[in-house]
Structures are given as C-alpha cells and as structure tokens.
C-alpha cells in the first residue's frame, strides 16, 4: 500500500477521533480540523510505509500536541486577550459542537495552552503526571502547577462549583 493510500485509509478510520481530540485542545471545529491536517503533514512527510495505524496515531497525536503547544498560538490571539474580544462569539454563541455544553467549552477556553493541554491529557487521555511531563517536555512539578491552576480556573465555570472541582481533583484514574 502506498503512503497515499495509507493516508486515505488512516484519515477515514482515525481522522474523526483525532478531530475530537483536536477540538478539546483548540475549542473550534475548523481549528481542530486544521490541527489534524497539519499533524498529518508532519507525520506522513517522514512516514515509512507499513507502519501500523496505532503507531501512526501516536505520532499524529504527539504532533498535534507539539503544533498546538508551539505553533498554534502564533496563529491565534493570546488566550488572555481572546475572552475580551471573542467572548460573545466563542461563548455566547457556541458552535454546533458545544451547543449545550457551553459550560465545559467556556471553561476550557479560559485556560492557557499549557493548562488546557495538561487538563486534556490528564482527564481525556488518562495520562499520569510523569507521562504528561514527558509529552509536553516540562517537569512533573510544572505539570502539577498547570493542573492546579487550571482546576482553579475551571472551578467557578463548571456546573455546581466546588462539587465539580472535587470530581475533577479526586475522580478518575487514581494516578
């Protein structure tokens, strides 16, 4: 199978889930699709034919993280400015994806890129703090700081305040 065929097949089978992952990072459907396509380019530009799909997906996910962490913000406004100028568009009129999930969508939109990446990796990818540190190339202490700050930012924006924060902090993987 040529790399072109592998790309088609991979995009068909794994693309949608990767867009979902990208959406959690970017908060916008089109941005998520762009992010996935950029990651496809980085991955398949160096792709060796015959690599299994799970491994390709690992490459693409890591590429998405790196692009999001290092490049994505260059094309966007800084998160600290964005709520002031885009609050109505982003939160008042949530896109079709977040129509009745505006609270979580808005909450994620308040986070810095690193905080958001840490939250997604911890609560969506179910990674441990050391694993997150490795993926983002920062120290474990820094990951703890980003998670702690993110949880404080999320607290007032989620449904029932403190109860949800307890859920966020204590629930889940137990790691």
């Amino acid at each position, binding site marked *: 199978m040529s790399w072109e065929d592998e790309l088609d097949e991979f995009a068909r089978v794994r693309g949608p889930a990767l867009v979902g992952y990208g959406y959690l990072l970017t908060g916008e459907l089109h941005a998520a699709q762009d992010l996935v396509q950029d990651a496809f380019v980085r991955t398949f530009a160096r792709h060796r034919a015959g690599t299994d799909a799970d491994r390709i997906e690992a490459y693409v996910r890591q590429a998405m993280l790196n692009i999001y962490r290092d490049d994505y913000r260059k094309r966007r406004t800084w998160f600290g400015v964005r709520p002031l100028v885009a609050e109505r568009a982003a939160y008042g009129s949530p896109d079709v994806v977040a129509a009745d999930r505006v609270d979580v969508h808005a909450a994620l939109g308040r986070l*810095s890129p690193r905080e958001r990446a840490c939250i997604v990796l911890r609560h969506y990818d179910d990674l441990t703090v050391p694993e997150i540190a490795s993926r983002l*190339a*920062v120290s474990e202490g820094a990951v703890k700081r980003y998670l702690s700050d993110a949880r404080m930012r999320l607290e007032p924006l989620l449904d029932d305040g403190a109860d949800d924060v307890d859920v966020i902090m204590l629930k889940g993987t137990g790691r």
Partner: protein
Amino acid sequence: MTFDAELHDLAGRAVDAHVRSDGFATAAVKGRVRRARRVRTTAAAAGTLAVVALVSTLGVAAAQDWWERPAPADTPTPAPTEIGPTPVPEVEPVLAGWQDAGVDPDVFGDATVTSAVSVDGRAVVVGCAAATGTPVGFPAWVADDPTTWRRADPPPTIAFDQLGECLRDVVATPYGLFAHGFGLYHSADGEAWEQVSLDSTLAAPGTFVMAVFAVGDRVTVLGARATDEGAVVPTLVSTTDGVTWTEASPDLAAVFDDASVVDVVSTGDRLLAVGNRNLGTTEAERGTAITASAWVSTDGLTWALVTPEGPGFDGCDMGEVAVTAAGYAAIGSCPFGSMLMTAWSSPDGTTWSQDAQPAAEGEGSLASQETTAVTLVGEDLYATGQDYDPSRLEDQSQGALWRKLPGGQWERVDVTETGVVPFLITEVDGTAVGFWPGAGWPISTPVRVLVPAE
C-alpha cells in the same frame, strides 16, 4: 456527569460534527506531504554532497569548522537546483576554549542527549527520541574518538520508534553499563544493549525506574510504582555480583516515599540524589505540595534525606546536580513558588541553600522559567532550561541560558554572545567532549559535539 465524561462527550460531539460536515479531503494534505518530502530529499542530498565535498577537498580539519562559519568561497557546491544554492545553516558560535568537533548531525537525527559516560576510553551517550520528526530508534550512541559517533545496537526484538521516548541516564558499573528511561537496559560495552528484567517486583504494572547507581561493588536500582491514591511507593533492588538481584527491606526504601528522584551523582565513596517529595497525604494535596529534596548514601541502600522543608525548598523541585570545586550545585524550578530560574548550592552535599535568583523578565505571574541542565566548564557554571511566557504571541517557549561565575550570582546570558556551551562533559580516548544543547532545551536543535579548542 463527571468532568472526564464531559470531555469525552464534547469530543464526541466534535466527531459527529466533523462527520456531518463530510470530514476533510486528503488531497490537499497529500500535496503538502509531497512538497515536504521533496524538500527533505533535496536537502538531504545537498547536505551529503556538501559534507563529502568539503571533507574530500579541504580535509577533516576544515570540515570540523563547517558548523562554525560559512564555507569558504571556493568550497565546491552541489549542482544547482531549481530552488537555488543550498543556504549555509545559521549556527551559534562555540564557547571560548571549545570548538565544534564536526560530527555529522545526522548521526543524532532529531534526538536530544540526556546523559553521557566514559568507559575504557569509549564514550556512551543516551537521549530522547524527538517528539516529532524521524524516529531515531534506540537513543544510544558510542564513540571511540571525538569525531566518529555511531548508533548503538538496540536490544533485539524491541521496536524503538515511538516519538519522544527517553533514556534519562546511563551509568557505568562494575557489571557493565545500565541505561534507564522507558525501561531498564544493560550493555557490556555500550555497543550492544539488552533489556533487563529484574524480578516480578520491578516488572509489576505501573512500576518505573527512577535511578540506577553504583558505589563500590554494589549496583542498585531505585524503582517506584504509583498507587490508586497517587502515592509513590519506592523499591530498592541491588546486586553485588551483577547476576543476583535482591530487593532491600521496604524500610530502607521508605525514605523515598512519595518522592521523585531525578538525578544521582557519585563522588567515589558517596552518592547524592536530588529531586522532590510530595508533602500531601491526599491526591489533591500531592498535586500541589512539593518540596525540593536531596538525599545522601554511602552504600546505595541506606539513604538519608538532608534537605529541610520550608522557604527556599517548598514549591520547588531539583532537576540536576553538578559537582563543583566548592561542593555541589543543583538546579531546578519552583512551579509553586517564584517560577523563576532556581539553583541551590552545598559545600558538602548535606547542607543546602538556595542561590539568589535572577530577576523576573516575563509578564507577571503567567511567565515561568524551568532550569533543566547544569554543567561546570572550568570554574564557571552554566544552566539551560526554558523560559515560557504565554503573553508572547510567538515563541512562548524559548531556550534560556544562565551563567554563574566564581564568586558571582546566576545571571541570564545570551547564547548568541557566549556561544554554545558543552553539557554532559565526558571523555573519549583521553579527550574531553561535551554536547549542546543541554537537556530540556525547548527548541529543536541539532546535537553538536564540542571538544576543547586546539
């Protein structure tokens, strides 16, 4: 609905919306991939031609300078292509007293290096596969002279093509070399590696190796596993013959309860470990209460915590330690403190104090600095790390270099002015070699091998 479930639901909605919108066509992606592949092929061919031509016509010495200055005007160039002459890469100068060894950067690919050791005149270096780019395979390299580096043979039957995989450390012991990171590996000569499975304790799911250290005839592995409550349970397993491994009493390992050991140095008759400890007892507390910590041992089994809790330590973690003429220097960060470049000094390994921190440069509380590597060059200390400031529209993560001269304080310096600095200094066939960049440098930078200037 829990927060985790909310995230999964949100992602699921994005998937549905993506599918409803017919997804995306891959034709444009393929076009970009083809262009990227053409550029890579052209660049690789041009680079190879340029290096071969340079070496064959000007000799090795000239080739060694290739990284330091533009090629001479009469340097043969590859055949012209549609995209014009190959640009000479713009590279930083080298620290005074050192020079580039002229090692082909392709040997290291997109990897970074994390640890180096010298045994019987041979240098062995381990590192991290790049988070993007070409998988480098098993990230270990060997050299018998400063300019000729080659890839080590990976353990058989194990695939090493994950991006971002790291070997954090390589240690010389009486029973050969041990490297650890995404597993524990052994080599008799640094050339051929095999995976090590110690026993069921260390092989238990969730167990990872934090450190390997040797003192006298004892080699010890410090392993740990995480509990469901987020606690870290350590294990010490050691050998005195290189064959039989024995788990030490849990009481001995308890000094590392809820700890993360990041670096260990040996000073002949003593070991010094640095890292951090969690001070909380719940998962939430463990996520926010850390303190920079150091431990010492004379036999690798009985360790003593030597750092206090409180100002100068709480909220911080130590990342790497160097032996200096005045004692020891450790670097790290304070993610729950100042968030500035952080370093500590000790005259004896047991009494530690935090150094004065360079002033903040970023935008208030959002900016942070993280120091990840330290090296002693002559009498001067250098540290690298990253400077993160989300208020910057571009390059939020920037590499940062700090210097501490004898009797002075840490100061931020510009690598374009100081030149690149040798980290992980070791020895090959009697010649010192160092590597740039130091671990944790956030910018993709080819590994440069540095040697003392002639």
